[in-house]
């Protein structure tokens, strides 16, 4: 058992939420006598069990309200669990947020000492590391100013510089990266890398699946106060994304209903002679079984079905597709002519189904597809309908560019070159 840093055993947490809406003196008097009935119970955590090994970077993921913060507060010893127990092997950082106890009326210097004392440092110890803290925060010129005159970025920098001095065996980190500018974020990442290199035990709570996958070894996924997945971080992160997608798909449907209503008022662009009409277009799962709006790493390709109906007799028309990103940038275009697909003659009333299979190389974002049909030479447009289908892509891998596909790299140090 010596390699276990934290053991969480069947931890549950119930909150009593009092009802405070006593409209009149009369009702509040009644409530006073029936005191025990004037609150409701809320289960924030249900039977959570997991273990964190020593030297492990451990992630806790979950949506807002999933119980992450409650769990973290229980780990930090701020809340006590209603049921179950926590065993901690070693010392633990006592704080879950940066800059706890910062007082705007005190100077930067005074706040450093106060914050240090809260983290368990004596004045002497703080004096010894004071210069380092100030230098790391890059605030040499501001230390004798009151904290209320600091920008929020400066405050975070100061808080972070103190927090990383904490010498505890186990560190709790709650989304510190959400704040600060790019340079500061780099410092955070460097600190994380150092923690990882030094084999420190870290519990990291975040929404950011990229950061989680980059640093964490294992993790847990919480949803509605329950532990739904634990194990390798890759699997946890993927399940988290699935969870997000599932709830987003619901929200998306609602939104679409509203959008559809709007569309009646302002139809998207459509042009052409209408000799052949585009009837519908939708994205599907790979088995062409049901509609699908969100594509993740698991989906190797994006399947798009377009239905056409002919009004006139036409000889081998050309079917085409264009995909735009959310900025309206044309990022993919193809048609049957370029693909050298043979198309047959079409007679009035005939329906044609065209299935596109496009490799899912796209980066995370929203996309629209515009199907079209044209004559044999591709010069006369029969029907072009803009933004007929919409879909989203969500990738775990971070990228700033248009394409986002699984890939690898190899790094070799080739030795010194002393020419």
């Amino acid at each position, binding site marked *: 058992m010596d390699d276990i840093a934290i053991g969480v055993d069947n931890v549950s947490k119930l*909150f009593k939420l009092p009802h405070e809406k006593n409209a009149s003196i009369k009702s509040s008097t009644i409530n006073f006598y029936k005191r025990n009935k004037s609150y409701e119970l809320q289960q924030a955590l249900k039977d959570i069990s997991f273990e964190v090994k020593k030297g492990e970077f451990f992630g806790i993921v979950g949506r807002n309200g999933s119980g992450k913060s409650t769990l973290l*507060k229980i780990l*930090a*010893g*701020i*809340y*006590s669990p209603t049921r179950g127990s926590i065993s901690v092997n070693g010392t633990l950082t*006592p*704080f*879950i*947020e940066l800059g*706890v*106890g910062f*007082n705007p*009326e*005190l100077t930067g210097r*005074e706040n450093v*000492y*106060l914050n*240090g*004392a*809260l983290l*368990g*440092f*004596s*004045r002497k110890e703080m004096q010894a590391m004071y210069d380092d803290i100030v230098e790391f925060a890059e605030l040499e010129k501001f230390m004798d100013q009151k904290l209320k005159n600091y920008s929020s970025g400066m405050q975070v920098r100061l808080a972070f510089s103190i927090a990383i001095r904490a010498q505890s065996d186990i560190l709790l980190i709650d989304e510190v990266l959400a704040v600060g500018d790019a340079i500061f974020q780099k410092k955070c990442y460097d600190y994380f890398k150092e923690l990882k290199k030094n084999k420190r035990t870290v519990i990291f709570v975040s929404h950011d699946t990229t950061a989680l996958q980059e640093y964490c070894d294992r993790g847990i996924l919480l949803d509605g106060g329950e532990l739904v997945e634990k194990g390798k971080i890759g699997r946890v992160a993927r399940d988290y994304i699935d969870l997000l997608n599932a709830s987003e798909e619901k929200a998306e449907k609602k939104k679409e209903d509203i959008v559809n209503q709007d569309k009646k008022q302002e139809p998207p662009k459509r042009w052409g002679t209408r000799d052949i009409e585009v009837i519908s277009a939708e994205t599907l799962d790979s088995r062409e079984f049901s509609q699908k709006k969100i594509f993740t790493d698991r989906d190797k390709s994006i399947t798009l079905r377009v239905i056409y109906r002919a009004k006139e007799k036409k000889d081998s028309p050309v079917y085409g597709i264009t995909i735009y990103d959310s900025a309206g940038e044309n990022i993919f275009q193809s048609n049957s002519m370029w693909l050298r697909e043979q198309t047959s003659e079409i007679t009035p009333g005939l329906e044609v189904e065209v299935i596109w299979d496009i490799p899912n190389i796209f980066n995370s974002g929203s996309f629209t597809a515009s199907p079209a049909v044209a004559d044999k030479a591709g010069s006369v447009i029969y029907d072009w309908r803009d933004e007929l289908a919409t879909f989203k892509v969500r990738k775990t891998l971070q990228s700033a560019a248009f394409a986002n596909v699984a890939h690898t790299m190899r790094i070799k140090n080739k030795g010194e070159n002393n020419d």
Partner: protein
Amino acid sequence: MIRHVFSKKNRALLAELVRTDFKLRYQGSALGYAWSLLRPLLLFIILYLVFAKFLKLGTEVPHFPVYLLLGIVIWNFFNEMTVQSLGSIVGRGDLIRKIRIPRWIIVLSTSISTLINLFLNLLVVVVFLFINHVDLLRTTLWLPLILLEVYIFALGLSLFLSAAYVKYRDVNYIWEVILQAGFYLTPILYPLALITNVTFQKLIMLNPMSQAIQDIRYAAVTHQSRTIYQVFEGGWYKFIPFIIVVLVFLIGLTYFRKESKYFAENI
């Protein structure tokens, strides 16, 4: 237990919290710390004019002005410490909700900064002792012990009140009324001899604050201050105030320890 309570970490934190408290207390006032001394001084002038000059109260008590001032200073300390401690846990909710520190440190730091204030006030009292040509009594050596009794009594109440206030926000109004009543039920402004009914005198002296204030006056100003020993003329009743102090402290501490687990979620 005691070793843990006063570990190096906790001592450092306590010192830092007291320091912060003091820095913030006179933040933005022109005279700053001088107010700690000026307040009792001005108070003394008012009391002296009203009670000694206009009402001619306590003419039978030697050095009545100083006698009066000392009583007021002790009561003010008790008042200030309990009132400030009462709100201290809720007031530092930001710390309680976000960091694991021993909760009692917050109450203790508040109590210590009021204690420092008491010593500053006592300095003023000493000055007046000299001005009034009060002879230095040997019994003055008892002073620290009696002050300790007042402090422990106030600390027990502070622990209880601060924990209760987290759950029940009516506590501060109730305590305000009790303090007001206590101020008049304690022989602070009037000499105890003014109460002619002996039973009332005895009842009043069972209050630890009455007992302590009369003892402090006896020890430092004049042996004419009626103490609990004289009121009860011996007998075990004289121990009741001390028993109350010990009980209040133990109950306060137990309740605080029990409740402190849930401070973070109840604030």
